[in-house]
């Protein structure tokens, strides 16, 4: 059951001129969150913005063994993300969650390959922790426009996550899209059992789902659609999903997702 928390901002760390990680005191949400779930966030009380916006839970914060809050990874693109970027310690931000279907986890001998594009890194910190706790070998494929926009590399490395990086300008890792190292590693993977997880822009998700399928690996992708309520009430965040009969139908990504099997989606 989701809860609505007037969450106090504990700290707000700017990672660059447009990325930030904001920590919110929402232990009730942190406690109940599974990897891949999201929260609906509303900074400010007025009519602008009127609606909440969806954010993946980035980290579950623990202090002295107790769960104290969550962080959100945000990129400043609109009004809500600007308010999150500018928020200061002590502000309160309304936070509704946890919402949505989480990732399905895999156990050894299966490996987990997480593929992130830009701010699509967001659901993979909690997923990585859950996978590591099960002893599942986990790799992060992480792509961005430039090396300056690759964040939290040490965080993942220190947890034993192998990193495969790509940047569009070639400043870090492979030059080009993240599918470059992904496809190379799939070619080398032999018969290893691999679950591919992906989050990022939809063209990237489509490319990752296709590459995974090409090499016979299942994928789970976390989509982001324009969302109104996060609860299944408004039917705005739909995404086309394949029917058994060859057709397609719209599924609400808030309650039917945001995590879908890559093979189930119809790409626009």
């Amino acid at each position: 059951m989701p809860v609505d928390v007037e969450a106090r901002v504990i700290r707000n760390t700017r990672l660059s001129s447009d990325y930030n990680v904001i920590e919110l005191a929402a232990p009730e949400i942190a406690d109940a969150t599974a990897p891949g779930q999201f929260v609906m966030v509303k900074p400010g009380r007025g009519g602008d913005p009127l609606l909440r916006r969806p954010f993946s839970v980035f980290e579950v914060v623990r202090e002295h063994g107790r769960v104290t809050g969550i962080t959100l990874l945000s990129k400043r693109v609109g009004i809500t993300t600007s308010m999150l970027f500018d928020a200061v310690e002590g502000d309160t931000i309304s936070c509704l969650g946890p919402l949505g279907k989480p990732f399905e986890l895999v156990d050894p001998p299966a490996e987990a390959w997480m593929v992130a594009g830009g701010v699509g890194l967001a659901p993979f910190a909690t997923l990585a922790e859950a996978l590591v706790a099960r002893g599942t070998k986990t790799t992060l494929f992480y792509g961005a426009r430039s090396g300056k926009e690759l964040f939290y590399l040490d965080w993942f490395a220190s947890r034993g996550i192998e990193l495969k990086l790509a940047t569009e300008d070639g400043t870090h890792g492979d030059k080009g899209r993240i599918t470059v190292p992904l496809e190379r590693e799939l070619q080398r993977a032999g018969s290893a059992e691999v679950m591919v997880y992906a989050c990022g822009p939809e063209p990237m998700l489509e490319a990752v789902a296709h590459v995974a399928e090409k090499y016979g690996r299942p994928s789970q992708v976390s989509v982001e659609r324009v969302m109104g309520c996060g609860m299944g009430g408004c039917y705005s965040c739909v995404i086309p999903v394949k029917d058994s009969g060859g057709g397609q139908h719209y599924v609400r990504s808030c309650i039917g997702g945001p995590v879908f099997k890559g093979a189930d989606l119809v790409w626009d």
Partner: protein
Amino acid sequence: MSGIDLTTRIGSLELRNPLMAASGCFGYGVEYADAVDLTTIGAVVSKGLFLKERSGHPPQRIVETPSGMLNAIGLQGIGVHRYIKEKLPELRRLGATNVINICGSTLDEYVELARILSDAEGVHALEINISCPNIKEGGITFGCSLHGTFDVVSAIKKVTHLPVIPKLTPNVTDVASIAKSAEDAGADAVSLVNTFLAMAIDVETRRPKLSNIVGGLSGPAIRPIAVRMVYECRRAIKIPIIGMGGIANATDVLEFMIAGATAVQVGTANFVDPFIWSKLLDGMRDYLTRHSIARIADLVGTVDTSTREKQWISS
């Protein structure tokens, strides 16, 4: 505060309180059962139902605007038969009061829907959608004319014992005359307003932001217009009015009721705060206590215009 009577009567239907979840803003109701005790809401109005399933419009289906939002969902829905089989049993178990919003492209479809739902257990009233701005066949052609409204309401009244509540569009010259036509046809109440036809354009791409090009505007931005329309209709008809349009707090509920609404519906605000219902009820009780009003029904239509100029309004 405990002595306050919030019960509300809409024709033969008695509600625990005047708050209703607006159609298309609450899924089929079951989606919210984890968060909200549905017995605490006066009634749940279902998402608009056609006879058959509908896929709705392609995304993008909503866009936010100042203090409001446009939607063009296109009445995606499971159809009446699946609703009765898959949703209604759960809603009965949850103790919800169910008002079913029905949409047809022809008069016969409305009549057929009314017949089917009249035989279903757990249906308490029918809201007749003759006002969806987003699809051609959603009855808007009925809702935009006096004759169309009269014909659809009187045809449905002939085949059902349930309270019949046409939902009116604000996209007409004179909503009060449409309301009068509904009353003359035997409607038990009217609900108003549906959304205002509107449009938003991305100036960078010069494309409409909605796939459907146009959509319906809801949210606090429309509230003053909706209040005025409820006020106009209150003067034109005797049957109960269910008012809606941008209600976001208890003050807004009270404003609609004072303007003449017997009950109200909450839509967009539920997207922002699914826990709004108990907050609205607390605020209403607090107001009634402060004003020593024992029954909320006594508040309806009590707007005092005696000291105001009112030549602008007809009739």
